[in-house]
């Protein structure tokens, strides 16, 4: 009894402190539960300085992390999703789009453009998970296809940073077709001998994994990212078993031969540069 009390005591004050945290100044790490000065995490490229947990970053932050300063030229920024099925669940798709655009300040779940990576011209497509869970509808599929086709035209390597729950249900069959459309564009890129690097970040599942995200000449993953076809909950419900520890995490995919390498965020730019320079013989 005595040592049960003693063990419990030091924990309580910490919990109290979290409740009183002024918002935005301190962040609790989802992985190690440590309370960390938010600025410190930011300075560390949104990676927990205590446990190396990789927080999700916005598409714009990601672009800043990998492209040479000021080199990014955005394409197709004005393209918007259309509610062509009049899809309505608890909310109209129309309203969901409007709210997401307002919140994100961007047109949809992916940002595409050209830029320089250590001086090497590249095409990039970067997902923003905060925009409707990074889901892929017509706009995402179209922007990615255009980016690939632009890479084909300019003979520039293509890099896609994925972070997506999969296809966007509100566009039903047409969102499914984006998987075929983007993969077909990659077939042309491959035939032309232009490199494609897929970077899988937390989380990448469903129709995005089952199309371009798994088709990299090189598949890279950030540490501990959730990557899979079916979501863990769906699998658990289907097979009625609990899932093994670490299931569908980057390290698990590496072990099973689905990704080539795990690259911490701090090393991402250097690694991309190294890989692309080998393949482009530059």
């Amino acid at each position, binding site marked *: 009894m005595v040592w049960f009390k003693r063990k419990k005591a030091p924990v309580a004050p910490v919990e109290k402190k979290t409740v009183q945290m002024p918002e935005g100044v301190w962040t609790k790490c989802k992985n190690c539960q440590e309370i960390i000065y938010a600025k410190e995490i930011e300075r560390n490229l949104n990676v927990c300085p205590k446990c190396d947990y990789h927080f999700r970053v916005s598409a714009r932050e990601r672009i800043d992390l990998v492209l040479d300063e000021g080199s990014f030229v955005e394409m197709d920024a004005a393209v918007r999703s259309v509610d062509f099925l009049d899809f309505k669940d608890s909310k109209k798709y129309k309203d969901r789009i409007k709210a997401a655009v307002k919140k994100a300040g961007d047109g949809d779940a992916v940002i595409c453009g050209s830029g320089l990576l250590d001086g090497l011209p590249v095409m990039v497509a970067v997902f923003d998970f905060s925009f409707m869970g990074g889901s892929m509808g017509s706009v995402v599929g179209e922007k990615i296809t255009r980016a690939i086709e632009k890479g084909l035209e300019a003979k520039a390597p293509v890099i896609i940073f994925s972070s997506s729950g999969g296809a966007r249900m509100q566009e*039903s069959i047409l969102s*499914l077709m984006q*998987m075929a459309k983007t993969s077909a564009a990659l077939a042309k890129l491959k*035939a032309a001998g232009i490199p494609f690097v897929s970077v899988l970040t937390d989380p990448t599942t469903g129709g995005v994994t089952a*199309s371009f995200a798994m088709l990299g000449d090189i598949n890279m993953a950030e540490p501990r990212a959730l990557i899979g076809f079916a979501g863990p909950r769906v699998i658990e419900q289907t*097979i009625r078993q609990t899932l*093994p520890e670490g299931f569908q995490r980057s390290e698990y995919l590496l072990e099973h031969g689905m990704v080539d390498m795990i690259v911490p965020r701090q090393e991402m730019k250097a690694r991309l540069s190294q890989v692309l320079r080998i393949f482009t013989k530059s």
Partner: protein
Amino acid sequence: MKQFLDFEKPLADLQAKISELKDFSTERVDFTGDIKKLEKKADKLRKDIFSNLSRWQRTQLARHADRPYTLDYVDHIFTDWFEVHGDRNFRDDPALVCGFARFDGQPCCVIGHQKGRNTKQKVHRNFGMPNPEGYRKALRVMQMAEQFGLPIFTFVDTPGAFPGIGAEERGQAEAIARNLREMAMLKVPVIVTVTGEGGSGGALAIAVGNRVMMMEHSVYAVISPEGCAAILWSDGAKGPQAAEALKLTAPDVDSLDCVIDDVIPEPLGGAHCDHKAAAATLKSYLKKHLDELMAMTADELIEQRYDRFRKMTRISE
């Protein structure tokens, strides 16, 4: 009709009555008049039911336990069929059947999802849900068809690719993705028919075709109504509402004007009422498209297939 859905029940009852009367008819007792009357009534009822199907009812028809499956269509449409097995890496996947046959004498390749009828078969076929090795087998066989210059017919009928631990371990996503990419470059005609359930990526992985058609009572969507309901309505039982929202029926998909080329009419009451008639109609559509595609060069086929999927976009800019 061996099994019937709720909304088929009144029709089934009526038909039972008709066959009962037929059985009782002898030379001395003549029910011809009554039978004719009842048959007329049944025809009208059938028309009423089938002209007012909800999207959920159509989904149920697409999943009907008596619906023709790939191997039934093989029986009715093709000759000289032989099945081939295995992905040469892991195992054979009975949920996806692959083989070669003749179509009106023309040597060809046939690929399709396969469901089972009784419990034992259903388990053997994994309810038509392939594992990665199924998709890899399909790709191996499609590339073999390309090697020998044979047109490919695929038949889509799956709730989806199997969501299991082994499937994830062996790269379900990679297997599907690779098929999408490789099918885009096939040098031979690919003709796709959604015969029952076109369930998401697991369906699309054998559906990148020069022509894509849907049977009248088939469905094709990015997610099952139940799966969609579980996520967006937080209630898997809201499948009927989700089916309405997903607009997943053949006429719905056809109205988008870019995803499918034809809706293939089924015998009144659905393909399950008359496998032979359903297959005969399907065959005439396959023939029409095959004739058109056989006149094209390899480059033209690749280009046409690419453009077909390239146009599938609804955006504003």
